[in-house]
Structure formats: C-alpha cells, structure tokens
C-alpha cells in the first residue's frame, strides 16, 4: 500500500522517540527531585522536602509514565487489529466510535446506575464500546464494510454520542466536573493501581493477538484462500474485533478517551516499513506507547505555565487530525465507491404530488401546534389569536428560524448526498458545522462580553476558513467524493478534543457554549428568524438551477463528463453552496442537528428520487423536523428547554440508524 522508504524499519522512528522520551523524562525527574542536580540524593539536608519529592516520584510521576506507555501500547494494538480485520487503513478505536461509545456507557452508568460501576467500569465501557461498534458495522454492512463507509458511519455515531452527552452535560453541569476531566483523557496518576490493572490485561491481549497473528495475516490475501487453509474467517474476525474492543474499553475506563494514538501508531509503523502483520503487532504498541509518553512528558513540562489544564488525550486528538489530513491523499481507495450511484437511480412510481400534499398538511399542523399549544405552570394551554402579540414576540421568531434552518440543512444535505453518491454524507460530515463551532468556541473563550453579531461574524469566518481548507486539500484530486468526505471527517475530529479541553476546565462560560452547541433557536429574534426563512425560501426557489447537475452527478464521473458536465467546476460550485447553507444553519441551530443527514433520507424513503422533487421534498421534511423538534424541546421539560438541535438529533438519529439498515 503506502510506504515512504523501501528498506526502513519502524526502529528508525522509535529510536529517536525513545531518545526524546529519555531526555524529557530526565528533565521531569530533575524537576521532581531537585536534589539530583546537586549530586547525590541527600535526604539529611531537607528531609521533609526530600521525602515528599521521592514519594511524588514514586506514586505520581513514575506511574504516570507507566500508564502512558501502557495506554499507548493498548491503543496501538487495538488499532492494528481493527485495521487488519476490516482491511481498513483508517480504522481505529476513535474513528470507529468504540472509544466514545465506551465513554458514553461510563457517563450514563455514573449518572443513572452507579451500582453498575461496582462490578468494574471496564465492563460498562466494554458494553458501550461494543454496542457502538455494532451500530457502525451494521450501518456500513450494505456497502460491504468499505473503509470510507465504515469510517463515515463511525463519525455519524460519534456525532450522535456527542449530542447525547451534550444533553447530559446541559442538565447535570455541576455533577459533571470530574467526569469531564476524565473524559478528556487526563493521564494524571497518584498510585500504581491503574498500571497494575491494565498491565495483565494488556499482556493477555498481546498473547492472544500473537496466537492469532498468523491466520489473521492470511486475511490480507483474500478470504477464499484464508478459508481454504481451514480458518473460520468469521470467528477469527469476531475474536479480533472483540479483543480490540476489550483493550480499548480497559484503557478508556481508566484514563478516558485518548484520541488518535490507535490510528497513528499502526499507520506510522506501516509507513516506516512494518510490512507484515506480525511486525505491525510488535511495533505499533511500542510506537504507540512512546508516542503517548512523549506527548505527555511535553505537556507535563509545559502545562505548569498554563492556567488551564490540557488533558493529554485531548492533545493527542488535536495532533491526530492533521495526521489524518496528511494521510488521506496517500490512501488508495479503490473499490470504495464502486456502487456509489445505485441508491439514487430507482425511478419514482409513487404519485409525488400526493406526498407533497401530505407533507404540506403535516407542516401546517406542526406550525399551528408550535405557535398556539404550550405548557404553562398551570398545565397545557391552547392560546387563541387574542394572545397573538405575545405569540408573535416569543414563538414566531423561533418557529421561523427552526423552519429556515431545517430547510437550509436539508438542502445542503440533499446536495452533498447526491454529489458524493454517499447516503452517509451530510453537512456535519463535511466538517463545516464543526469548523463553525470551533470558531464560536474560540470567540466565546477569548472575549469577556459575547454579543450576537460577534458570534455571527466569527461563525461565518470560520465556515469560510473550513471551506477553504476543504477546497485546498481536494483541488488536486478534483473534489473526489470519498476524499472530500474523509477531509471533512478529519476537520470534524478536531472539534471533539477542543470541546473536551473546554469542558475539562469547568469554565463557568461553559453554560453558554453548551447551550449554543446543542443547537437552540433560543437566541433568535424576529428579524433573524424572518431572515433565515426568507433566505431558505430563496434557496428553494433556486433549486432548478442546480437540479440538472444533481441528476447527472450520481451517474458517475464518466457519464457526467460524457453528458457535457464540467465535473470539477460543478463540484466546486456545489461545495461552496453547501458551505454557505451549512454556515447559516449552524449559526441558528448549532452544529449537531442531523437535519441535513435525515431530511434527504426521509424524502427518499417517501419516494422522491429525481433531483428537483428530492430537494424540494427534503426541504419540507427538514422544516417539519426542526419545527417539531423546537416545539417538543420547549414543552417536554418545561420550564427548562431542550434545544431544538438536540431533540432533532435524538429523534432523527434513532430513526436514521433504524432506517439506514436498508441502504
């Protein structure tokens, strides 16, 4: 596959890393034990201080270094196994959603069933990780577990889990203080307990991995020859996946999510010349351990100068995203998009006009409910038009904004799905939502008085920057859909660690960030709401202009070219369009709504398949989804409000995962 140097071995990269580690450790040790510098360990001079620093060394510094090595090794091993079994060079505990699934399991258990944790957090983590891996695999099953499909499904599951934990944090903010630090992957230790817990598990896992290494290596050839050697391929795969989930869960339950070591370690040792599986199984854990230790030692050295804490796991996550970006152009993705077009080609037999009528009626009902039906301290109320002034003041802007955002996201989603021929594509997946969110978080963090115009400016600016990155990185490959999506995934992957760092510091401004991130129409005033809807309607009117492109693109690059479409230019224009739509919608309802993923699907399930009706239908479904979500969010926990984006994500996400089995 990919290799930089012909005759290199991973030792070439592990050795320098080892030397860096040694230097940094020496530095850290010298800081811990200042007596070292003056020659001998002279406890008599200052017995108090000497004893304390010796204990800090023994029970904090050394175990921390040990756990960094072990966790890095564990994730490296898990990554190698996942990549081998799925024959997917970008599979890893984080990209497949295993780590975040394990984490969500532990969060839920801590809040609602602390009793479960008495049996050991790792079993809860294991269940969480296994469930989310199962969902990822079943979502990508019909695409033959193609690498991009699997990783896309992983991202969607990650985003969904992100939405779920945002709800939990929103309503349990103070209780979450501690959990957030753990969740961000802090390696701080104060005893040898964690090391002694992880070490035997890692040894057992390594031994099992060693035993199945040979048959597993044969999977590289192809399944039939592996089977002809008398291997039960299915059992082998199941066992290796189970093993990798177990190692991941053990590590996550101790130190939280440590991003991207599981991806980076196997990929880099492979690049450095570890060609056989046995070599990779050997070198990836070594490299993973050293990588994490180096990162942690750097942080240990410099974090004392920062007023805020930067957890190591979040840091590796930040470092990992550029790696993924660098890796994407170097991946061979043949075969991944072979059947990309088939989903859009069934012709519609259903009378489309009746479906439009149905949607219009539903839209009307939901709008009326959203405007006139409400809970109050005294119970449910149906307001009549006499209260119109108050309704127009408080509810109308939100309904308008919800509808507008829903339409914009649905159009963006339908466009990107048709353009890439991938049913998992959505504005969220392209990373534009995440890019906008990153910009807003940074703005809120660095300014004392946050105003709405400032947020709009920052959000639009970061959307433009994200778009520029997307275009820059994909220009040479002609905006090929699979690569485009992977670039988006890498950008989206930047967002999680940033959010974790913010959360881990427990900054009081967090309420504001979370409230916005969860996608509420709360901050919308009447002009904004009206503006959003008008803009959305204008976009709907413009659909016919791009309908022909979107009918032709799913037929494949060659057919489209043959029919006289200048594919690259068209893709660039559409990409810009999607970015604008997404940025606007994200500013209104936050980065996590899933409307852009769901609405086009629902529209397709309803039988809208040609571009024009599909986009129009998607827009209606999007509006319906968001208006309903906004209304439900205002009523369910009255007087507390669940943000519309979250309600849409929770409702729609579940439906989506159910519905997607068919694709």
């Amino acid at each position, binding site marked *: 596959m990919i290799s930089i140097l012909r005759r290199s071995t991973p030792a070439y990269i592990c050795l320098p890393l080892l030397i860096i580690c040694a230097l940094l450790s020496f530095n850290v040790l010298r800081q811990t034990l200042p007596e070292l510098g003056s020659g001998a360990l002279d406890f008599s001079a200052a017995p108090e201080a000497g004893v304390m620093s010796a204990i800090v060394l023994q029970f904090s510094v050394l175990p921390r270094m040990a756990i960094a090595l072990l966790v890095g090794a564990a994730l490296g091993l898990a990554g190698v196994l996942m990549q081998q079994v799925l024959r997917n060079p970008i599979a890893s505990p984080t990209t497949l959603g295993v780590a975040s699934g394990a984490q969500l399991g532990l969060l839920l258990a801590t809040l609602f069933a602390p009793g479960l944790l008495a049996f050991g957090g790792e079993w809860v983590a294991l269940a969480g990780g296994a469930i989310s891996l199962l969902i990822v695999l079943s979502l990508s099953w019909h695409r033959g577990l193609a690498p991009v499909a699997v990783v896309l499904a992983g991202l969607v599951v990650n985003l969904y889990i992100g939405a779920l934990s945002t709800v939990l944090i929103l309503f349990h903010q103070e209780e979450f203080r*501690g959990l957030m*630090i753990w969740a961000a992957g802090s390696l701080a*230790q104060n*005893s040898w307990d964690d090391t002694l817990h992880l070490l035997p598990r890692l040894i057992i896992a390594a031994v099992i991995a060693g035993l199945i290494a040979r048959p597993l290596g044969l999977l590289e050839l192809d399944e039939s020859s592996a089977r002809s050697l008398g291997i039960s391929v299915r059992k082998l795969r199941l066992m290796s996946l189970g093993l990798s989930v177990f190692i991941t869960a053990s590590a996550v339950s101790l130190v939280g999510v440590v991003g991207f070591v599981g991806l980076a370690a196997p990929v880099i040792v492979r690049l450095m010349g570890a060609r056989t599986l046995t070599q990779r199984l050997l070198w990836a854990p070594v490299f993973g351990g050293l990588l994490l230790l180096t990162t942690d030692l750097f942080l240990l050295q410099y974090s004392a100068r920062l*007023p*805020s804490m930067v957890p190591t796991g979040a840091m590796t996550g930040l470092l990992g995203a550029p790696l993924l970006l660098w890796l994407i152009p170097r991946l061979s993705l043949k075969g991944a998009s072979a059947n990309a077009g088939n989903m859009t080609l069934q012709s519609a037999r259903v009378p489309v006009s009746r479906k439009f009528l149905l949607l219009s009626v539903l839209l009307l009902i939901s709008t009326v409910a959203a405007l006139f039906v409400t809970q109050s301290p005294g119970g449910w109320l149906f307001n009549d038009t006499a209260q119109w002034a108050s309704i127009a003041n408080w509810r109308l802007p939100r309904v308008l904004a919800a509808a507008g955002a829903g339409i914009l996201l649905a159009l963006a989603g339908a466009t990107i799905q048709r353009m890439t021929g991938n049913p998992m594509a959505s504005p969220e997946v392209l990373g534009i939502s995440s890019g906008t969110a990153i910009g807003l978080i940074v703005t809120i963090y660095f300014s004392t008085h946050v105003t709405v115009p400032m947020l709009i400016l920052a959000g639009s600016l970061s959307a433009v920057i994200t778009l520029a990155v997307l275009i820059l990185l994909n220009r040479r490959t002609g905006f090929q859909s699979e690569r485009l999506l992977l670039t988006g995934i890498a950008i989206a992957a930047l967002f999680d660690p940033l959010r974790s760092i913010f959360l881990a510091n427990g900054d009081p401004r967090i309420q504001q960030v979370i*409230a916005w991130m969860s996608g509420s129409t709360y901050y919308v005033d009447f002009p904004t709401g009206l503006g959003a809807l008008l803009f959305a309607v204008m976009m709907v009117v413009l659909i016919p202009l791009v309908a022909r492109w979107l009918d032709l693109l799913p037929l494949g690059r060659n057919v489209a070219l043959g029919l006289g479409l200048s594919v690259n230019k068209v893709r660039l224009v559409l990409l810009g369009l999607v970015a604008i739509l997404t940025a606007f919608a994200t500013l209104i309802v936050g980065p996590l709504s899933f409307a852009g993923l769901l609405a086009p699907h629902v529209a397709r399930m309803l039988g809208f398949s040609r571009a024009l009706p599909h986009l129009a239908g998607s827009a209606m479904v999007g509006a319906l989804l968001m208006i309903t979500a906004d209304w439900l969010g205002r009523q369910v926990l009255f007087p507390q409000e669940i943000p519309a984006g979250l309600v849409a994500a929770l409702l729609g996400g579940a439906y989506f995962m159910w519905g997607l089995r068919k694709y």
Partner: protein
Amino acid sequence: MLVSLSAGAAVSSPAQSQNAPPRVAAIDWTLVETLLSLGVVPVAAAQIKDYQTWVGEPSLPEQVVDIGLRAQPNRELAASLQLDLILISPLFSAIEPTFSQIAPVQTLTTYNPDKDFWQNLVETTRRVGELTDRSSEAEAVIDQHRARIEQLKGKIPADTPPLLVVQFIDDRHVRAYGKGSLYDMVISRLGLQNAWQGETNMWGYTTVGIEELTTDGYLIVVDPVPMSAEGVFDNNRLWRALPAVRHDRVLSLPAVWSFGALPSAVRFAGELYQAVTDHTGTESGLGTL
C-alpha cells in the same frame, strides 16, 4: 443593635419596610444570594434545584418560580410574571436583548479581576440595594459583613500557617483556589496567607493533581467531595505523604458557593475560623496531656 447574620433572620428582617419590594428575577446565583441577604425574595430564579445543592445558604423560599437553565431561562414564563427588574451577570449577557423586552435588565459584574474583590462584592450589594429600593439595608448588610470579618480577624491567631483551599473534582484532580477567588479574598481579609501562589484562571482557580498540594500549612478541603474521590483519603500513599496530611493539618469545610457574594464570603470566614480554632484547640489539648 444585635446583629444576626443567619440567613433566615436576614430574609425576614426587612419585612417591616414601608414600600412593597419590586418584583425581581435573578438569573445568576450570586445575585440571588445578594437579593436574599437584603431581604428581597426574588419572584423567579434559574435552576433552583441546583442552587439548593451548590449554594445552599441562604435557601430559597418555596414560592420562587424556577425559570429554567441559567443560560436559557424561559422567556414566556418570565413574561407572564409581571417583573419589574431582571438581574443578570455578564456571563449570561446574550439574553439581555430579548429579556429587556420583558422588564429592565441590569447586568452586574461581580468578577472583575482588575479591582479589589471585596470592593466588587460591596459594590454589587450596593447596586442591588439601589435597584430594589433597599439602599439602607444594603449599607447595613455591608457593614454587618465587614464587621463580622473584622471580628473574626481579631480572633483568629495571626500566626496561623498558610492555607491551601481546594475542592476535589475526582480522585486525581482538585481545584486549587488562588488569586482572584472568593476564598483567597477572605483569607487575606482575615490577615492570613494563601499557600497557593500558582497561576489561576479568570475565576481564581486552577485544576491540578493532588501531588501539587505540598503546603506545610493547612490544607482546606471544601465540600462536596465527589464519591469517586472518597477512596483517596483512606489508602492513597501520595495523599498520606502530603505534609499537611502527615501533620494532621487537613480541615474539612461544609459547602460554600465558590463564586458567591458577601454572605458566602462571611460564611466561609466563619467556617474557616471554626475549623482552625477547633483544630488548634485539639492540638493544644493534646499538648497538655
């Protein structure tokens, strides 16, 4: 005049005042606390259940309406309460434009790192007093609290060793409170020394591992201690090796809202005084044995 600082007394005392108090909603807990200290019961407050857990004293009477999350209080509900005034802190300034359609919104800045912390609290109290027609009560409350702190300062031994105030986050991390925090301000007003001299964020704390708590003086652990951290006290070698632990100088204090106003400050001072004197009492008691 006998000055009582208990919350109940403070709430009930201005009942005899002549004009009816304005109908106030307070979004920020610090402002809720300040209102209650002036004897003004807010009509509405945000996240009341969490307020009772994290601020606790002074407690909110039953009739106060919960208007939802602090970052997104329910506007329709607020509009139906015929409010005269809404008090917020800059942290939630994003709600100002819409809430000012319901009633006049006043933004009060308590956390301003450029100014003296005590003075900030005094000014917040004074401002709330002005806004609610309770100026004389505000001055009285300020004087009471100042006098109480002065009184405690006179009683607490000046040679009390430095204090390091922490709150446990989990079994590996604590928040250490330094410059810019309520606790630090109280410590210095009592004429004592804060042992935490490291960097702090805008709110006066920083998150560190327990190995950094190497003070020779007192280690003050403010409740609540999360369940996950309880194991640390019994069998963690690192914890047991901390100088304060070895010399039995760990003091546990009941929960005091770390972002509080004057009442929280004085409550912290009182609890601190109590804990330190109890401790030196037993120590000297041991000495005479």
